[in-house]
């Protein structure tokens, strides 16, 4: 059974359950830590590094989404250094692929774009890599545009953990890493995809989208994940 822990986040005394993450505890206390790969209802992987925080007594920065609270912890969620580093991380996501907001289906509905705005990112110091990447439009209803993918793996996790089809996974490594369906074949020829569309729903950018959507057209956000997860837990 979980117990109660008391800790400080940004100087504010907060109480949390011992199995809660710093991110969770912060959210409950209206302290907002930026996140990108995190999505309520999915497991956390600590990959995007936006939610890193300073914990007193630890020289390393800790990902708030994967670090559980401890008694007496003193957490800082915003500092000059953290803001600069987060900004750099967002910049890196922009420059590694071809994120051209003006012609993206997710324009104005994109979490990456919103983060850039929040940290005041108005240009890139790093040169754009401009990789040649494919757009997979072979699925009858959906499109995967690798130019917009930030490898947050939300699609991989929702497909594995919630839909349990495990159509998506990550192939390759380093800057060559790509989201793939089945054996790297076109999405449309996937034998495991149930066309449920959950991956499209959870994609934070314009990498996965429904056919027929135009630029900037708002996408309906359906907060069904926590509900589905609860149903599954009850079944178990």
């Amino acid at each position, binding site marked *: 059974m979980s117990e109660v822990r008391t800790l400080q986040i940004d100087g504010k005394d907060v109480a949390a359950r011992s199995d809660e993450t710093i991110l969770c505890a912060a959210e409950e206390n209206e302290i907002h830590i930026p996140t990108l790969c995190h999505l309520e209802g999915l497991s956390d992987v600590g990959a995007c590094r936006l939610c890193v925080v300073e914990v007193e007594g630890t020289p390393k920065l800790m990902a708030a989404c994967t670090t559980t609270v401890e008694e007496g912890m003193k957490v800082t969620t915003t500092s000059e250094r953290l803001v600069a580093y987060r900004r750099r991380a967002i910049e890196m996501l922009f420059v590694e692929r071809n994120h051209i907001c003006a012609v993206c289906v997710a324009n104005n509905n994109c979490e990456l774009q919103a983060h850039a705005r929040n940290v005041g990112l108005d240009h890139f110091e790093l040169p754009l890599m401009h990789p040649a990447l494919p757009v997979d439009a072979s699925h009858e209803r959906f499109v995967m545009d690798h130019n917009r993918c930030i490898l947050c793996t939300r699609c991989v996790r929702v497909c*594995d953990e919630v839909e349990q089809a*495990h159509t998506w*996974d990550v*192939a390759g*490594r380093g800057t060559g890493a790509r989201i793939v*369906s*089945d*054996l*790297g074949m076109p999405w449309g020829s996937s034998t*495991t995809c149930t066309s449920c569309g959950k991956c499209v729903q959870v994609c934070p950018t314009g990498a996965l989208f429904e056919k027929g959507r135009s630029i900037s057209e708002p996408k309906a956000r359906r907060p069904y994940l926590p509900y589905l997860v609860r149903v599954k837990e009850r079944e178990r």
Partner: protein
Amino acid sequence: MRELGYRPDALIEVLHTAQEAFGYLDAQALAYVGDRLGVPQSKAYGVATFYSYFTLEPEASHSCVVCTGTACYLDGAGALVSAVAGLLAARGQEAAPDRWLSLEEVRCLGPCSMAPVAVVDHEVHGKLTPPGLVSVVESL
């Protein structure tokens, strides 16, 4: 596979075995392995493309692996690679499907005292010079 008990965690071992048997991992092999071990296809593909030892392309008849670990790098591994690449280019065979020779770079094979090192058809050659390696390769 039977030996390893059809467990999902045997994936890498089984892929090693499959590659040894067929020379490379094609879609059919990956699908079969995934199926038998209860590993989703995309995961099998993800694993096969993560590790540099696995190849999804048919093997060339001969292989030349140049070590580019620190000691070899400092001792001129780069020149070895360019020499063999030059030879391949001259023969116009680098992209043919039934290639004559595959040229690979690998990070540190361990015999650093013999730097620079290359492995030609599984045989280790040390203290190489570019002409030396070219003559080894040409003798294949």
